[in-house]
């Protein structure tokens, strides 16, 4: 699956850098490199609501350090 973390200005200010790092760590920890392709996206058009992440065609807003694990298991682990 493809995961895009928004690195547009809004998300960047809300911590997309942290989310990318968490994403990299979680993928590495579970050795999912072949299954999950991580890349950057520029503005997914949902700027008001925290960091936006697109899992294939589904955009999830408001991703933060606090809810990261939950979102990772709901949108990545449960689907691969």
């Amino acid at each position, binding site marked *: 699956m493809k995961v895009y973390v928004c690195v547009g200005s809004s998300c960047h200010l809300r911590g997309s850098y942290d989310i*990318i790092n968490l994403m990299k760590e979680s993928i590495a920890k579970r050795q999912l490199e072949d299954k999950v392709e991580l890349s950057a996206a520029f503005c997914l058009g949902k700027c008001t609501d925290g960091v936006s992440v697109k899992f294939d065609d589904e955009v999830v807003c408001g991703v933060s350090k606090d809810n990261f694990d939950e979102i990772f298991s709901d949108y990545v682990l449960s689907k691969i």
Partner: protein
Amino acid sequence: MAEQNAKPQAKLRKFDTKVQYLKYKVLREVARHAFDDTLLESFNDIAKVIVTGKKPTMRCCIYKERAIIGERIKIATGGDRSNPNVIEVIDIACDECPLGGYSVTENCRGCIAHRCEDVCKRGAITFDENQKAHIDKEKCVNCGKCAEVCPYSAIANYRRPCERACKIKAISMNEETKAAQIDNNKCISCGACVYQCPFGAIDDKSYILDIIKMIKESDSGKNFKLYAVVAPSISSQFSYAKLGQVITAIKKLGFSSVVEAAWGADMVAYKEAAELSEKGFLTSSCCPAFVSYIQKQFPTLKDNISHNLSPMAEIARYIKENDPECKIVFIGPCTAKKMEVKLDTVKPYIDSAMTFEELQALIDSRDIPITELEEGVLDNASYYGRIFARCGGLSDAVAEALKEQGVEDFDLNPISCDGIEECRMALLKASKNVLPNNFIEGMACSGGCIGGPGCLTHGPKDKNQVDAYGKQAFEKTITDAIGVTGIGK
């Protein structure tokens, strides 16, 4: 009606000169009709909208004024396709200013001191029966010493403003038409003449029609995303509004997202530092006019030009790697960027370029009320990427990047060249192997990009504004700023 209301305000707050304002009005009207799909049928009406009334205000008669507007429309819609240069002379707009170098004016009082005669090493000064000075053109070499010493400032130098602006001597008079002509073999498209011609007879071609077409085809990002890559010098522009409001205005125009070119500058600084410490001597590659100058006038130094793309192209490449379907427009102060986007090395990444002047025209053509908009955000780059906009910023950034990469066995000794004349001196020395520095930061415009011809306004505080904008950056180091991009990991 809107025109009447907008006029005094727009002129006062938006531009340095009335020539810019005139150019802006043409661009705005062309854009308005292009957005409305009425350009073809209204082509001839635009001149009448701009030159109203029966009395001429700029030229001998309104018919000449309208004819010149017609030429401006041509340039606003892409200009002469057969001319590869983006800088073009409007022959009929050229006032054919007098030239002839130093001449004695009526202010000469026929004094007895004759300082002019004493200082002239060529013996070119003679006096008539009224003791008034004359300059023998056969002997005069235009050194200007006589003008300097005259107590009455009676000796004037008749040079055309365009020729004076063109420090690389690419402009001369066409013997036949007497109008200015540009030598494309020398011209680096820096646009200094565009900004300096008091009659607005030299202009940069505009590609706003291509841009408007992309805006329409993108259809608010439905068909493909349209990105605006904005130069950091924007911080000294649009002074009547907040930067965040300009960002929102760009999005309202139809751009999906606005990205800082300064972020590309962070990437460039990081890579440039590595390349420099490896090779030992480099010239910067950010300023396309400077790069073109080296290629045309100092071909022996070509191999020393940094192999990095410019910040504009670097960030665009990153965006296109992540979103191959998208289209990208650069917005900045620069006319030479319009040449750069045509290069084979840059073409795949950037689809078009426009100046801040053109952006202003586009925004106003859609009647977007900038000062009433809410503020958007633009924040990816670090302080160092942002200060690329002013002279010296690039060297500071490379020094920082060397530090962040822990390069200790390389002593950076940069020279920041402010304007093409300083570039020339440094390149001349480098070509003769007598330059003590190991990095030439070249900026063709005085002050760096903030002095660019496509700026709306130029002022002494511009540099401070760029620095202040840099300090507002969320990321404090280059490594942090480019962390998400995967470079430097």
